[in-house]
C-alpha cells in the first residue's frame, strides 16, 4: 500500500468526518471548542463564514455532519453538532460590528438574483463586500425564501430569520421584493453582468387521485399551505387531518395542523417507517405531539359527500424480495382501508418549475426538463447565468443551498473579472502543533464519557397552543459545555514522522482504541485484516507511513481514533504529534482568483 500523502489537504480533511460531510465544510470541531470556552461570538462568526445562517441552521439543518460524526462509532450517539451551533447563536454578543462593511466603492458589475432564499443570499453575501451591485428579486414580501415560507415558526422564530437575513441585506443591495421574475429573457435584457437563479423548487407535487377535483376545497398542497400559514393567510384547519407523505414537509404539515385546531392528525405514508425521507428527529418530534405515523399505505382515492371531503382510501402494501433479490412493494392481500378526515395535506414531494425561462435563449434543458448546470461551477449553458440551491439539481436542503451559493459566487466573481470559471484554486490548509508542554495540549484531550444530552422542549400543552411558539428551548450554557466536551476534536490530527520513530511500540500499547499497528507492508485489503483491530470500515482511510528501521510500516486506522493524543504523549521521540488541521475554503474574493 502506498505511503499516505499528507502534503495535500485531502487526507486530513477526510479525517474530520463532520467537516468533510458538511456541504459547506464548516470547521465543526473548531467552533465546538470555542463554545466550550464560552467564546460564543467567535464560534458564531466561524459558522457564519462557512454556512451563513448559523441561527437558522442550528435549528433546522438536515445535519449531514451528525451521522458522519466519529463519536457515533465509538458509542451510541454522535455529538449534537447542530444544536451546539444554536448555542453559539443564542449566546453570542452583538456581532454586527464584526460583519463585513458594505463595499466602499462599487466595482461596476451588476448581478441579479432570482429568488431571495438561502442560495441567493449566500451569493449576495459573498459578492456584496467585493463591490458588486446586487439586485435581489423575490415574489414574497420579505427575503428569506423557503426559510421564511416553509419552515414553521415553532421550529424557527421569525426574529432569527430577520437577524440573519439582515446581516446580508445590510451589506448594501437592491431588494425588489413582491416582484416575481416572469421572464429570464427580459431580465437578461436589463444588461446584468451575471444572473443567479436561486428560485428553489417551488411547486408541490400533485396527487391526482379520484375525488381530487371534487373535494379540492379541503385538499391542500403541503408547501403552499405552510407558506400561507407562515404569512398569516391561514390560521385554522379541520379537527381531523391526514397528511400524505413521509418527508420533512409532511412532518411540518402535521405539527402545524396540531397547532391550528387539528386534534386527530395522522401521517400516512406509502413506504415503511424506516424508509421515510424525514429526519429521524423530526419523526420523533411528530410522534411526541401525538401524531401517529401509519406506514405501508398507498393512497387510492379521496372520498367525498357531494364535494365535501370525507376521507381517504388506502391500499395496504408490504415489501417483499423478488427472485432477483430486488426489493418490491406489493399488495399485502389485506383489504383496503378508509380513514375519515376533514382536511388532507399533500406533502409527497416538490418539483422544479421554470415556466419563466424561455426555451429559445440558449438555455439547454435535460430530459427531466431541468436546466443543464455544471455541478462544480454552477454555470448554465448561458455563460452568465448561474444556478444554486434547489433550483440547480432539485430539492435538497439549506446547507446544500449555501454550499452552491459559495461555489456560484466564486464563478460569478471569476466570470465578471474575465477569468476562466473552471480554474478554481484548491482550499488552503495548515497543520499546527498543539503541544504546549511535555504532556499538555492546547485542546482538552481528556475524553468525556457523557452520553448525548437531549435538547429541552417546551411543555407540550403550551407548545401546541401557538403556532409561533418555539418548541425547542435549546441547550443552556452548562449543558452546551457538557455536550461540547463530547466532541473528539478530530481536526487535531495525529501526524506521524517516520524518520523519528524508534519502533518502541509505546503508541501501539497505549492506544485505547487499537488504531495503531506496526506491521509488514502489503496491499490494502490484506493490511486491513492484519491490524491489531481489523479495519472493517472501508469508508475510513488507513494512514500508512514510509518504511521504518525494521522494514515494517506504521499503519493507523482512522475509523475510531479518539484524538486523545496518548500516542503522542507516550512517544519518546516526538514521532507522533497532535497538529490542528485548518481548512480555508476558497470563497469569492482574492483567494479564488488566479495566483
Amino acid at each position, binding site marked *: 500500500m502506498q505511503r499516505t500523502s499528507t502534503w495535500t489537504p485531502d487526507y486530513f480533511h477526510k479525517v474530520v468526518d463532520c467537516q468533510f460531510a458538511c456541504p459547506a465544510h464548516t470547521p465543526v470541531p473548531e467552533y465546538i471548542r470555542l463554545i466550550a470556552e464560552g467564546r460564543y461570538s467567535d464560534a458564531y462568526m466561524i459558522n457564519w463564514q462557512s454556512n451563513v445562517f448559523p441561527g437558522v441552521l442550528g435549528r433546522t439543518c438536515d445535519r449531514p455532519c451528525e451521522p458522519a460524526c466519529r463519536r457515533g*462509532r*465509538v*458509542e451510541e450517539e454522535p455529538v449534537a453538532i447542530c444544536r451546539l451551533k444554536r448555542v453559539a447563536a443564542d449566546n453570542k454578543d452583538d456581532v454586527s460590528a464584526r460583519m463585513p462593511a458594505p463595499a466602499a466603492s462599487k466595482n461596476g458589475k451588476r448581478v441579479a438574483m432570482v429568488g431571495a432564499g438561502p442560495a441567493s443570499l449566500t451569493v449576495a453575501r459573498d459578492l456584496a463586500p467585493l463591490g458588486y451591485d446586487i439586485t435581489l428579486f423575490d415574489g414574497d414580501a420579505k427575503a428569506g425564501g423557503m426559510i421564511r415560507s416553509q419552515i414553521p415558526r415553532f421550529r424557527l422564530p421569525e426574529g432569527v430569520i430577520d437577524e440573519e437575513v439582515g446581516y446580508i441585506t445590510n451589506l448594501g443591495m437592491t431588494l425588489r421584493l413582491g416582484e416575481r421574475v416572469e421572464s429570464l429573457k427580459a431580465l437578461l435584457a436589463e444588461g446584468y453582468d451575471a444572473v443567479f437563479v436561486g428560485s428553489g423548487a417551488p411547486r408541490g407535487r400533485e396527487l391526482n387521485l379520484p375525488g381530487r377535483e371534487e373535494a379540492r376545497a379541503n385538499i391542500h398542497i403541503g408547501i403552499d399551505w405552510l407558506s400561507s400559514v407562515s404569512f398569516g393567510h391561514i390560521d385554522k384547519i379541520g379537527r381531523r387531518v391526514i397528511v400524505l407523505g413521509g418527508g420533512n414537509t409532511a412532518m411540518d404539515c402535521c405539527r402545524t395542523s396540531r397547532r391550528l385546531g387539528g386534534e386527530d392528525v395522522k401521517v400516512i405514508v406509502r413506504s415503511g417507517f424506516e424508509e421515510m425521507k424525514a429526519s429521524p428527529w423530526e419523526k420523533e418530534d411528530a410522534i411526541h405531539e401525538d401524531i401517529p405515523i401509519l406506514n405501508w399505505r398507498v393512497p387510492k382515492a379521496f372520498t367525498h359527500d357531494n364535494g365535501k371531503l370525507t376521507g381517504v382510501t388506502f391500499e395496504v402494501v408490504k415489501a417483499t424480495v423478488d427472485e432477483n433479490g430486488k426489493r418490491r412493494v406489493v399488495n399485502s392481500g389485506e383489504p383496503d382501508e378508509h380513514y375519515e378526515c376533514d382536511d388532507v395535506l399533500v406533502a409527497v414531494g416538490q418539483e422544479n418549475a421554470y415556466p419563466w425561462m424561455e426555451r429559445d435563449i440558449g438555455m439547454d434543458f435535460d430530459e427531466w426538463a431541468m436546466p443543464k448546470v455544471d455541478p462544480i461551477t454552477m454555470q448554465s449553458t448561458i455563460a452568465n447565468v448561474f444556478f444554486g440551491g434547489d433550483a440547480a439539481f432539485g430539492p435538497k436542503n439549506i446547507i446544500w443551498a449555501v454550499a452552491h451559493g459559495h461555489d456560484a459566487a466564486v464563478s460569478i466573481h471569476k466570470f465578471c473579472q474575465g477569468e476562466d470559471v473552471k480554474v478554481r484554486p484548491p482550499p488552503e490548509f495548515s497543520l499546527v502543533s498543539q503541544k504546549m508542554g511535555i*504532556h*499538555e495540549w492546547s485542546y482538552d*484531550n*481528556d*475524553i468525556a*464519557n457523557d452520553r448525548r444530552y437531549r435538547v429541552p422542549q417546551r411543555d407540550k400543552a403550551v407548545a401546541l397552543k401557538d403556532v409561533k411558539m418555539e418548541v425547542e428551548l435549546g441547550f443552556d450554557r452548562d449543558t452546551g459545555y457538557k455536550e461540547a466536551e463530547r466532541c473528539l476534536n478530530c481536526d487535531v490530527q495525529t501526524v506521524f514522522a517516520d524518520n523519528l520513530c*524508534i*519502533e*518502541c*511500540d*509505546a503508541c501501539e*500499547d*497505549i492506544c*485505547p*482504541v*487499537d488504531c495503531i499497528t506496526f506491521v509488514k507492508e502489503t496491499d490494502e485489503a490484506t493490511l486491513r485484516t492484519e491490524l491489531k*483491530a*481489523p479495519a*472493517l470500515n472501508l469508508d475510513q482511510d488507513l494512514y500508512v507511513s514510509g518504511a521504518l*528501521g*525494521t522494514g515494517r510500516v506504521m499503519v493507523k486506522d482512522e475509523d*475510531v481514533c*479518539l484524538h*486523545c493524543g*496518548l500516542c503522542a*504523549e*507516550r*512517544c*519518546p*521521540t516526538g514521532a507522533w504529534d497532535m497538529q490542528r488541521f485548518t481548512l480555508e475554503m476558497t470563497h469569492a474574493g482574492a483567494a479564488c482568483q488566479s495566483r
Partner: protein
Amino acid sequence: MTYILKPQLHHPNLPTNARGFTRRDYEGSVSTLCAGCGHDSISSAIIQAAFELDLPPHQIAKLSGIGCSSKTPDYFMGASHGFNTVHGRMPSVLTGANLANKDLIYLGVSGDGDSASIGLGQFAHAVRRGVNMLYIVENNGVYGLTKGQFSATSDKGSKSKKGVVNHDSGIDLVGMALQLGATYVGRSFSGDKDQLIPLIKAGLAHKGAAFIDVISPCVQFNNHVGSTKSFDYVREHNEAVNRLDMIPARSPIHVDYAPGETVMVTQHDGSVLSLHKLAELYDPSDRGQALGFLGSRQAKGEIVTGLLYVDPEAGDLHDALDTVATPLNELDGAALVPGSKALAAINAGLR
C-alpha cells in the same frame, strides 16, 4: 507519564475471552514511566497473555520489589492482588504467599537492580526451591530511577550514555536460573511481542519456578550507541532459538510447521508448547546444552532468545514439602491445632 486517564471508550469490535472480558479489562492504571519505556511493552504483553489465557483476575497475585520495573504491576491487571514489597525482597514475600495459598497464580515482576543486585540472594533461593511462579525480570541494564548508572546486568565493555565504559562483568540471570534449577527458562525482548506473549503464557501455565529475562531498553538512559540493551543493538544481535506457540489445555491443537521442525511439549496442566526450531541443533530439554549454547553465543555478543529450557514434568515447593491439597490459609483451627493426643502420637513416633 501521562496526565489523563486512558479513555474508557474502546474499539467497538474488541474481542472478549471465555470469561467475557476484553483485553482492556486486564489493564491497570496509566503508566507513569517515561514515554517509550520498554517496561510498558512488557505490561502490555502480560495483559494480552492474561486475556488470551482467560485468567480470572481475582486469582492472580502480582508481587514486585522496588524500581521502574517493580512499579509496573500497577499498570496491568488492576483487578488482581498486588504486593509492592521491599527492595530485592519480592521472592521471599512471594514464597510466603505461595505457601499460604497455593491456589493463586503468582507473577513476580522485578528488574535487574532488584534481582541481580540487592535481591540476588533472594532470587537464587526462590528459584532453587522451585516456588510455583512466573518470575519476570524487566532487564534494562541500567539504574533508571537514579539516572543511568550501570546495573549488575550491564555487559562488560558497554558504554553509558555519558560515554563511560563498564569494567565489571555482567550477571547473566538466565545462566543463573538454569544453574539454580529453574524448570522453565526463557529470554525475550520487549520489542518483540510475538515472541514474548507466548513465553509469558506458557510460563504462567508452567508448574514450578518459571523465569523469563526480558531485555527492555531504557529509552531515557540506555538506548544509545555503545549500549548492549538498546533497541537497535538487541534487534541486530537477537538470536532466537525457537518460536513458541502456547496452546492452552483443552484447546484444539493446530501446528503450522512440517513435522520434525516442531517439537510438541505437554506441560503438567495439559497445555501444549509447540516449539518451532530456529537453531537447528538446539534442544530445550537439555539443561547442560542450554548453558553451553548460551555461553558460546554470549562470547560472540549475540543475545539468545526464545524458550531456552523447559522441564514439563517439574514439581514445585509444595510437592517437595508434601503439603495438603487444601491451601494452608483455608485450613481451620481443628486441622491446624490437632490437640495434645496428636502431639503425643508424633512424639511417640520419634522416640
